[in-house]
């Protein structure tokens, strides 16, 4: 899976993949619920991507700490564009933890 794709889960819900985050050698996606026509809702989730027999599975991240870390990573990359020092500091802090 990759960013900018719309995935459809087995429960029929569509998600738009917005950001990709590599964390502890696992691939996470920040996704937002959307319709087939890509009308998005304010329902963001982090998905852990897994593969089995060439098929993709996603697992919603519900661990608060993990969500926070993923959010920080995403934010750090965004903040780094505007505030390079802050972004750097943020990533360093994450690494130190």
């Amino acid at each position: 899976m990759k960013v900018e794709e719309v995935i459809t889960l087995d429960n029929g819900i569509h998600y738009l993949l917005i950001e990709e985050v590599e964390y502890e050698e696992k691939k996470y996606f920040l996704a937002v619920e959307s319709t087939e026509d890509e009308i998005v809702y304010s329902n963001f989730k982090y998905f852990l991507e897994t593969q089995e027999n060439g098929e993709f599975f996603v697992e919603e991240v519900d661990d608060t700490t993990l969500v926070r870390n993923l959010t920080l990573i995403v934010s750090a990359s965004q903040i780094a564009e505007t505030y390079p020092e802050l972004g750097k500091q943020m990533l360093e802090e994450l690494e130190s933890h």
Partner: protein
Amino acid sequence: MMYEGKIINKATIAYLKGLLSEQTLLDPLAVESTEEKEIISAIRILSYAKINTDEEEAKLAKDSSYEKKSERTIGGISFAGTNKEILEQATQVRDCLKHNPLVKMDSAIASKTLYKENDTFELTLKDGEVLTFKKPIIVESINPSDIASTEAYLKSFYEKYNKEALQKYYKSRKYKGKTPRIPYPHELFVFTNGEAKIRKSTEPCTYYEKVVELTSVKKDRKKAKHFFQKRKELALAKKDTENKKEESNVTTKRHKVINRVPGKEFFKKIKDYFVKEGEEEEWKQAWNSIVPFAIAGVFLSVFKFTPFGDAILKGLVSCIKFVPKAFINASKLIPYFRGQLLLSSAMLSACTFNLIMLISLAGVGVFTCVAIKKRLKKIKEKTVQESLQKESETKEPEDPKKTEEPMPPLLPDLEQAEKNKRESTINIGNLSGCMLRMNEVKTQIKECEFLQENLDDPIAAQNNLEVFFNTLLTQENEKLAEGLVDEPTYNKNVAVLTNAKNDGTLLNQHNNEIRKRLDERIAKLKYKLDLLLEQYDIIHFGSSAQMTAGKGKTI
């Protein structure tokens, strides 16, 4: 999630700036500190920028001067008109915001912001220009210095339907070799220090805002207070809903992805729209590098299609190879020529070209040989100089007695140098320079030896003593004049010097010092002379050996 994307950014900045604790960042609802509450409230307000017009409406409705004209800023949007009109406008905006991206226009930018039907906004800028936006936008301009650039940017945005503005942004931004990223529709425009910047938000909606510095967040605390309570209630309600949802979906956390397609509406449109800009830039660069070759290619192609041009080209190609071949090929091209004149001119051109080529080649050959020789000469000189320098740095001066040994005869070497001069002119400069330096050193040695001998001469010794005494006396006078010594000390020093002069101590001291210095000087000069002799031998016999093979090196 506790935060939505646009809030987490600001909250994280606040956290990194030390304004919020980690616990608050993690769970803003559990915060107890008033300071942090206010900051969170401000962040929420500034992030959401939603217009909570409920209270404003109530105030306006209660206002006795309902028909009085005024200007008000509600939720960051400036409204002008009677209170009734303002209320209507604010209601329209609020309704619009329920289904559309957020709108916020600072009063400093637009003196009047009116929401029109069909989801359009009419903005009246300070200079009276009215802009109508098809989609709601959100702009906050807190820093007054940003107003001018923001206005200009908005105009640009408006005129070019966002395309040119983004293009301008991309041009102004230093990518350092990276390919310009396709902007997401949910990217935020950030106005900082008068420059339009862009940053990506996790909020997938099209809106624009100015980055809110936390210094300005504090200013909005009062305004933020009444929002916080409401936001808290909403957040709590949302949290409860999420918890319930999570509980109901405990067993279905893991889902299989049954289909995945590339984003169309959300990303592709933007990609199709903007990627051309990036490609255009790349193509422009590529084109700039190709243009000369393309022009040359077109010119040659056109030229080749003419009989004369074709013949000339073939003739030139042949001429580059060999003269005879060129003539043969040229003769084969006769059917292409239309008349004797063309043939003659082509042959003449070919011959001239060939002659020029030969002369050029010969010139290049000669030039290359000369350059190589010069280069070798320089390398050799440099090597010798480096070795001499290295030796002089590392090698200690030998025993002076050793240097008093008879110097190697210079005359035969000079004769040999004169002989080699006839054979080669390469090392003339080096030999002459080396000999000159040797003569100088020899002269200096002789001068030193002469001075040493004269030290024992009574007349010279007396003269030296007077000079030495006067020098010391002058030094003492200067010390007194500068106040370094007082008068009694000065008198005492002068008396000591005079006594030393009279009893011969000063003379002995002076002579010993001079003799010692001269010895050192002579030793160094002799050592230098040895090095020069060695250099002379290297240059002389080395070059001689190279130039006259079989003679051997006599070093």
